[in-house]
């Protein structure tokens, strides 16, 4: 299962439940429980994929909205967290696309004036490495976060993203190589 990786021992949060929770598709109380159990982990993934915490929180809410709309069609044989992560990554890709459009509009509107940066209190204290991860293509960054933060195996990542396992391995290798180049290692 997704919770068996030893890399989680290093982090205080988010800790997965000891036994996998069971949910009934379409059940309102179960979805509320799912939200409570998985929100932080989904938010963690999204923070790594989008620009700042408020955007990540907005994307997390959007993720659960989309999940709620399709809650009755979710199949219990598939890991629910993998399903949520797939939705979250799609939301992040969408957000990045809109962000680029917004940024292009702002550049035209400002006409050369310096862009106001995000509120420092709302931006994570990020190292060069973390910033480099955030700048990777979303699918590569998502593979890295699922592998090295949540501790998924390549097979679990492949199930979550709906791609072949080889594709996951390729994305991870490309992402690591890119990071090494960017960081000069």
């Amino acid at each position, binding site marked *: 299962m997704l919770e068996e990786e030893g890399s989680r021992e*290093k982090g205080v*949060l*988010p800790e997965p439940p000891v036994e996998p929770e069971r949910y009934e598709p379409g059940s309102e109380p179960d979805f509320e429980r799912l939200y409570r159990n998985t929100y932080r982990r989904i*938010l963690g993934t999204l923070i*790594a994929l989008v620009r700042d915490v408020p955007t990540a929180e907005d994307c997390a*809410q959007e993720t659960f909205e989309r999940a*709620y709309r399709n809650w009755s069609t979710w199949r219990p044989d598939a890991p629910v967290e993998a399903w949520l992560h797939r939705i979250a990554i799609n939301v992040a890709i969408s957000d990045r696309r809109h962000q680029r459009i917004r940024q292009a509009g702002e550049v035209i509107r400002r006409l050369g004036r310096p862009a106001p940066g995000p509120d420092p209190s709302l931006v994570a204290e990020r*190292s060069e490495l*973390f910033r480099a991860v955030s700048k990777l293509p979303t699918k590569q960054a998502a593979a890295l976060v699922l592998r090295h*933060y949540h501790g998924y195996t390549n097979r679990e990542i492949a199930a979550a993203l709906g791609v072949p396992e080889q594709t996951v391995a390729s994305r991870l290798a490309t992402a690591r190589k890119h990071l090494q180049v960017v960081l000069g290692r």
Partner: protein
Amino acid sequence: MSDIERELEEELHRVLDPMSARPIPPRRSIQAHRTLKTLMGGAGAALTIKVLTGVAVAAAAATVAGVATTGSLNPAIWGQRVSQQVSSCQKTLAAGQHGIGDCVSDFSSQHGAAVASAARHQGNGNSNGSTKGNGISNGNGNPNGNGNSNGHSKDHLKVQATTPATLEPEASDPVAGHPPARITRGP
């Protein structure tokens, strides 16, 4: 595990763990967000723009129709007036008298003067007949009513166009630069 992988895991946990530890907010209401999104974004925004454009086009069409039916810029109305004038001129002919050309010509030149006056007020009006856009009327009675406002508002045209043309004959010497000729019998 390579150095970069180890470093990556440490870094992700260092940055993300404290942020993920924030209190879980209540789940966002779906219905309200959906409505707002429908109005403000995506296909909803396109639909809103289409509806607003439709309303604007309908309003503009109504305004143009109003001008067309009430203003004398409409050639059909001008044609009716000419017909009436021709009938009037025929009735006033004395027995045995022929030709209504002068009578109709006077009326036409009055219309030309009226349109030229409107053009004078607008600065660059063009009645597209023998009445020139620079405000000079030669009074040969062939204005076809195709006024050209050249970018001026329709309302402006409408006000001037609804001023009825008078049937008063135009002065033969509008400039009044010459003294009237006096014919006297010689000694």
